[in-house]
């Protein structure tokens, strides 16, 4: 079938971080009790932040729209339960700057009452692409694998380039995280239904459910769920980080690379996370927006690791309390996986659409060694799945050689963290590379600004010149006109004085 190759292609490099998945692997998904207060950020996606469309004191239903999109690249925000809007405030969010962001504070009423106006599609499995996409947009669904890019955009069939295959990403290559595998084990039918709807939307003909070999439970469950579906295959992949990164997954299956700066659909394949699949299903079948998600709470610093079904906006502290609290000696709190996640400053930060895990890590689990000089061992090159030369990027970023950063392809870095994982000098390479990316963007916009200023000032100069020339011309014209008038007058008077003579002479 077309672009799907018979063999798997190993991407370049990769690492084998200690999995630590056993901590939460066997913990069935459990619902957490409704917290006293939810803080729902207005930006939980890649793109434009939402605008609040509720007022403090207003009563809302579960699933009611509370944050409206103001552009296409955006995802709406909904109330995670029924209750009263307390206010629209700045609240701590799990951003690694440690800065607060706009959140809607919601006090649950305990009734958990759905918005009665929410409805699914009539015949969802016969629906056309646009109606599925509209439901997905209304539901505020974003990619739950980590990129949180609005899903309705990803489900728009690209012009001119048909998408043949949809890859459902259940690779889950980050250590500790087990939420995707639990979803596949417990909600396999929902995953498949979501995949079928997404295939309709993007008009893909085949679906591969991609799972790493270390999740036999999920593989078995998904194989059972796809029985009788001819276009579905469960694809088992060897364990290698970052196999779950979308470009590396596409390369493994299709042997093609997503062009630098291009989109995954350029290869004829598209990737969606298993959690996204379930969210799409709920939005299309029942009209239920994305207001809950499955979060793995793990790490050696947590008393009772678990996989929790959590309303979005729940403070992290509530999750930890539900899991028996922290053990002594927790050094670092992480939102999402230990390879690509962010350090949490404050446990009051809420769970958002992008939160796949909350990890409490102890001193033995984390890296806490001082950075040393690069010894150019080349390990970072060996493991980089993008075949970059990370040490060279870092060297340029550290020395602010911003002009040289594009030639070492700084923007192609996927920030998977493999380089820093193997660095014997403990250099936080990803940190420097992020800085480099920002420096390049800043320089580019600076240049664009300068170019615009230059163009403007040139245009102004030209305009001034033109005006001056125009003035001169007018002056000249007036002078000429005046002269002409003078001449005419002179000629007239001369004419008049000469007239009698003429008359005379004629006479």
């Amino acid at each position, binding site marked *: 079938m077309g672009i799907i190759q018979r063999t798997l292609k190993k991407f370049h490099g990769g690492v084998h971080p*200690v999995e630590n998945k056993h901590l939460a692997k066997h913990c069935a998904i459990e619902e957490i009790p409704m917290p006293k207060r939810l803080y729902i950020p207005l930006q939980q996606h890649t793109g434009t932040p939402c605008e609040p469309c509720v007022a403090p004191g207003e009563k809302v239903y579960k699933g009611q729209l509370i944050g409206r999109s103001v552009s296409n690249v955006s995802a709406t925000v909904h109330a995670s339960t029924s209750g009263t809007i307390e206010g629209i405030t700045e609240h701590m969010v799990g951003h690694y700057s440690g800065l607060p962001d706009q959140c809607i504070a919601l006090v649950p009423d305990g009734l958990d009452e759905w918005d009665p106006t929410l409805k699914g599609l009539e015949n969802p499995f016969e629906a056309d692409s646009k109606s599925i996409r509209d439901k997905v947009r209304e539901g505020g669904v974003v990619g739950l694998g980590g990129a949180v890019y609005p899903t309705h955009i990803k489900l728009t069939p690209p012009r001119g380039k048909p998408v043949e295959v949809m890859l459902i990403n259940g690779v889950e290559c980050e250590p500790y995280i087990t939420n995707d595998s639990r979803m596949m084990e417990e909600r396999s039918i929902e995953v498949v239904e979501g995949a079928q709807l997404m295939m309709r939307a993007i008009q893909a003909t085949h679906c591969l459910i991609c799972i790493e070999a270390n999740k036999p439970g999920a593989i078995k469950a998904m194989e059972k769920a796809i029985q009788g579906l001819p276009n579905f295959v469960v694809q088992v992949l060897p364990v290698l980080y970052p196999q779950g990164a979308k470009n590396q997954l596409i390369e493994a299956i299709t042997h093609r690379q997503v062009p630098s700066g291009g989109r995954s659909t350029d290869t004829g394949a598209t990737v969606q996370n298993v959690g996204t699949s379930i969210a799409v299903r709920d939005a299309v079948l029942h009209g239920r927006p994305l207001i809950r998600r499955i979060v793995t709470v793990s790490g050696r610093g947590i008393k009772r690791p678990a996989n929790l079904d959590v309303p979005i906006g729940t403070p992290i502290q509530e999750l930890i309390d539900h899991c028996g609290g922290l053990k002594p000696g927790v050094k670092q709190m992480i939102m999402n996986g230990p390879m690509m996640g962010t350090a949490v400053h404050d446990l009051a930060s809420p769970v958002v659409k992008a939160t796949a895990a909350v990890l409490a890590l102890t001193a033995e689990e984390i890296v806490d060694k001082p950075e040393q*000089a690069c010894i150019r061992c080349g390990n970072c090159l060996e493991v980089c799945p*993008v075949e970059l030369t990370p040490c060279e990027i870092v060297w340029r970023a550290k020395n602010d050689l911003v002009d040289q950063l594009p030639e070492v392809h700084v923007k192609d870095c996927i920030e998977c963290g493999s380089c820093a994982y193997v660095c014997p000098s403990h250099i936080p390479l990803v940190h420097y590379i992020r800085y480099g990316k920002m420096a390049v963007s800043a320089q580019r916009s600076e240049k664009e600004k300068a170019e615009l200023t230059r163009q403007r000032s040139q245009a102004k100069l030209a305009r001034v010149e033109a005006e001056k020339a125009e003035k001169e011309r007018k002056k000249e014209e007036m002078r000429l006109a005046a002269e002409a008038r003078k001449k005419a007058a002179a000629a007239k008077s001369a004419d008049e004085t000469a007239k009698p003579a003429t008359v005379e002479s004629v006479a």
Partner: protein
Amino acid sequence: MTKSSFKISSSPFVHGGLSVPEVMKSVIWALLPAAAMGVMVFGWSALFVMLITVAACVVSERLFNIIRGRPSTVGDQSAALTGLLLAMSMPPNSPWWLCLVGGFFAIVLGKQLYGGLGYNMFNPAMIARVFLLISFPVQMTSWPAPTPLTGDHALTLSQGLAMIISAPFNTPELLDALSTATPLGQFRTETGMGKTVREALGGAFGFDILAAMGGMIKGSLGETSAVLLTLGGIYLLRKRVISWHIPMTMILGCIVPAAIFWLIDNSTYPDPLFHLVTGGLIIGAFFMATDYVTSPVTPKGQIIFGLGCGLLTFLIRTWGGYPEGVSFAIVIMNATVPLIDQYTRPLTYGKKKQTL
């Protein structure tokens, strides 16, 4: 921004556990069998050469840290490794002051003046050896015949120490009795006098390839035991401390041209095996040229670098002014590393031409 009670850092938060001291330790371990063989073959004096050189390097490193007001970098063990590498490329009866000068030069002028580990342009051990070879040619080319610890002529521990300490007031007869040319030196001298390969290597000199492989030949302290050095190299390859690119290409870069010339005229040019097992080709290929800091980071670059090191070694050995060329070859190639790295950058994901 509030002050957090948790550690705030950038991803990733976990680490594979590899560290610079661990890398250096692996290399030191890999060198030890050949070093021990050096002591077995050349006697206790070899041990003192190693100890003094390593001590000189470590003390220089610490002193320079103090002068620069920086935290100690002795712990990264790179100074100790430099000392061991330098000692293994020196004559086994080198006088104490030669060891001190060499160690000091390697660390201070070869590394610390550039900014320390990671910033040096040239392999510190190799640049120090080149410096010693040019500055003290007599001491650096007085090679003792093997006097195995188990043999009849073995010096005692104190005699070995005395030999190192008493220099440069070396008793002439002792030095004379011990000094001979290395196989490479011998070969150069004899073929220079118009002798053929067979005459140069056979006869009184009695070159024995098996002895050479085991290390029972004259030469630098640890450069001679091809078998043990290769085993050390394989250990590093297995531990993935080094990759095959540089050692393999350096060896091929030397013995392939050697083989071609030998096939053309085997009365003038020695066979490739001779190139392989005498002198510093093996230690150079596995331990010197593979120095991270002074070799390319890209695999393609490492191949070019290795071939260059090997070819230059062959050229210097065959037509150059010195019988041995490994250290010169490596130092010359070190200078080309930034250029090689710039032009051998791999094609990044998504930038390859492909049919979509």
